[in-house]
């Protein structure tokens, strides 16, 4: 792949939420939800963003489509989010005002985690899917819009007559399909999938994942796939980034990270994935001690050092730099080697 075309470059992204207290509402602390995240996405590949709850992966996704500020007015966002449009134009989404962002909203979309709360219960499915079109494709006639909604319903595996129904009449998997149809309505370039299947039954998960893979091809759309379920991410992603406490700690091809996790945190995370075959003989099972430190008061240096099985005193001196352990496989830990158990 020599002519990899850039899609998204995130450079040193920091998202901090100030905490206020007291009668004068003084700022007493900062939640560093995302604290210096950088990665690049190329067209045609799916990036999987993995990490446990509270590690900031959802915040990264929300910040990329620029809705963090809408939800939390006082969020402090620094860094760059460079979106490369198909025509070569480059836009920095970070701190783009609501108005200036609007033209790009039809290019970047999001699929949400909770299929029960992500659809407006007072609107029919038809209205839900049609609404983005009325905003972003005002030139379309009513009939065209209706046709496109029917086409989308068909593509996500719903029947046309279900368009007149309300979200509560559908199952979780069907609702998530509606959410996917809504995200696809304006024919976007990039879709942020924020744990799209973690609220679904395992059997339904597979259906939805496969549907997404089919649609990715058909609609020529790129996915940034956020999840905590590694096996799901491995299935859908070309590359995987592992996040811990607001930092990316490991970054590489999906097989590299999944079959050859190198950072101590990734190893612990991977070893927690249940195996169907008891004799598959995973060598070790790393069980982490303690809880994730609060992002209010993070450890100095490597964020993982408080729970790291191989931590050394000098881990406290600054965030470790990324080292390329094998081709395209970057790890933020100087004390591990790819393929060698620590």
């Amino acid at each position, binding site marked *: 792949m020599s002519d990899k075309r850039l899609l998204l470059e995130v450079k040193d992204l920091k998202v901090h939420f100030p905490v206020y207290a007291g009668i004068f509402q003084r700022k007493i602390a900062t939640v560093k939800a995302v604290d210096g995240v950088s990665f690049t996405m190329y067209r045609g590949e799916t990036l999987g963003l993995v990490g446990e709850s509270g590690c900031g992966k959802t915040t990264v996704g929300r910040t990329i489509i620029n809705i963090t500020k809408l939800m939390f007015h006082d969020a402090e966002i620094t860094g760059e989010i460079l979106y490369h449009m198909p025509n070569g134009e480059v836009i920095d989404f970070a701190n783009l005002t609501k108005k200036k962002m609007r033209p790009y*909203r039809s290019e970047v979309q999001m699929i949400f985690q909770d299929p029960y709360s992500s659809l407006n*219960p007072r609107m029919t499915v038809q209205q839900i899917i049609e609404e983005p079109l009325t905003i972003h494709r005002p030139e379309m006639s009513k009939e065209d819009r209706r046709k496109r909604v029917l086409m989308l319903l068909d593509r996500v595996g719903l029947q046309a007559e279900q368009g007149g*129904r309300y979200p509560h009449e559908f199952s979780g998997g069907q609702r998530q399909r509606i959410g996917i149809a809504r995200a696809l309505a304006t024919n976007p370039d990039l879709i942020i999938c924020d744990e799209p299947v973690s609220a679904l039954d395992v059997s339904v998960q597979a259906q939805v994942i496969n549907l997404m893979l089919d649609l990715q091809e058909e609609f020529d759309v790129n996915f940034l796939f956020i999840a905590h379920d590694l096996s799901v991410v491995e299935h859908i992603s070309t590359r995987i980034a592992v996040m811990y406490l607001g930092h990316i700690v490991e970054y590489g091809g999906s097989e590299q990270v999944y079959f050859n996790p190198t950072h101590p945190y990734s190893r612990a995370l991977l070893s927690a994935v249940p195996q169907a075959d008891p004799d598959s003989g995973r060598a070790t099972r790393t069980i982490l001690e303690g809880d994730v430190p609060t992002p209010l008061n993070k450890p100095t240096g490597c964020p993982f050092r408080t729970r790291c099985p191989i931590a050394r005193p000098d881990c406290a001196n600054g965030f470790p730099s990324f080292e390329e352990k094998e081709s395209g496989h970057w790890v933020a830990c100087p004390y591990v080697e790819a393929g060698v158990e620590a």
Partner: protein
Amino acid sequence: MGTEPTYHDSQKIPEGAQSDGRLQGELTDTNLSANDNEKKDKAERKKKDDNQSYWRLVRRQYKKNRPARVGLWIIMFFVVTALFADFLANNKPIICKYQGTWYVPVVHEYLVGIGFSSWGKEEFANDKWKELDYDVSIWPPVPYTSRDNDLDNSFVAPFQTGDHSHYLGTDQLGRDLLAGLIHGSRISLSIGIVAMGIATLIGVLLGVLAGYFGGWVDIVVSRLIELFLNFPVFFLIITIVAFYQDSEPNALIFLIMAVIGLTGWMNIARLARGEVLRVRNMEYVTAAGALGFSSPRVIFRHVLPNSLAPVLVAIAFGIAAAVLTEAALSFLGFGVPPTVVTWGSMLSEARGNVYAWWLAIFPGIMIFLTVLSYNLVGDGLRDATDPRLKL
């Protein structure tokens, strides 16, 4: 994947069975109706369910609540009474043939009132309808208006029909009590509705702004609510009314409505704010933001429709409170001008004539029924929009 769950022989679905959140609205519904003829019910519902919206669910839930239904009927009865008050109690015939010509005096009166027509005949303009010789005449069931003095028949007790027809008796000036009740329903109902209309407008607007935008808007609105809650509303109204005692009767009535409304929005604003705060954090509002919808669109299409149910309940209770406030004001003599008869002013007349029990009992019953009905409706709405029914 089927959309319709099939409960072939479900007796009762236990609470825990809903924990998967799947089609909760229907589950709850089935649960409640589980006892009575299930199968018929189910088949019927299947037909209706095809396009069921939230309000349809609420309506069905509401209908199951007998007191709430009765309350709604009573209110509807009062509304009809108020609308047709002039046809129910009037000192002129509804239809009459006088000197060879047909007249519809009650309707004619409206036209004269707005200046579209004139009475033409002097005996009509003099309001001496009862002394005329008609060829044919159909009279309203109560042949008096609320203002007609009948000094020969003062303090007639109820149900004593002589050659008059004062069914519920008269007061000191011989004014018919039933006519007063019928015409008084207009004031009571319109005070409740207009006052709460004003309160709802202000309350929802401020509440939604505070909840949706947060920050300093929220701080300002919240402090404003607290400020207004500290007003001794009743005394404020008395003071204001005292200042404008001499103005036009209709203007004064509207002033009272406006004051009750302007001092009664806090509860609604607080509820609306709380609901909006809840709905604002739902993912569909985030999704609307991600889709680039404008703030007004998000507010009116996504936030408001999902946060109005509790406000509706507050409005029902608020109307009841407004009716009571007006009655209390009139009772104290600070309310509507003396020429306008309301239930409250009728009560205040009873104060001076304790032996004329009917003057206290009947208006009291009317106020009681109205307030009770609105409270029942509010209760019913609260139950019908209960979050367990939420979709």
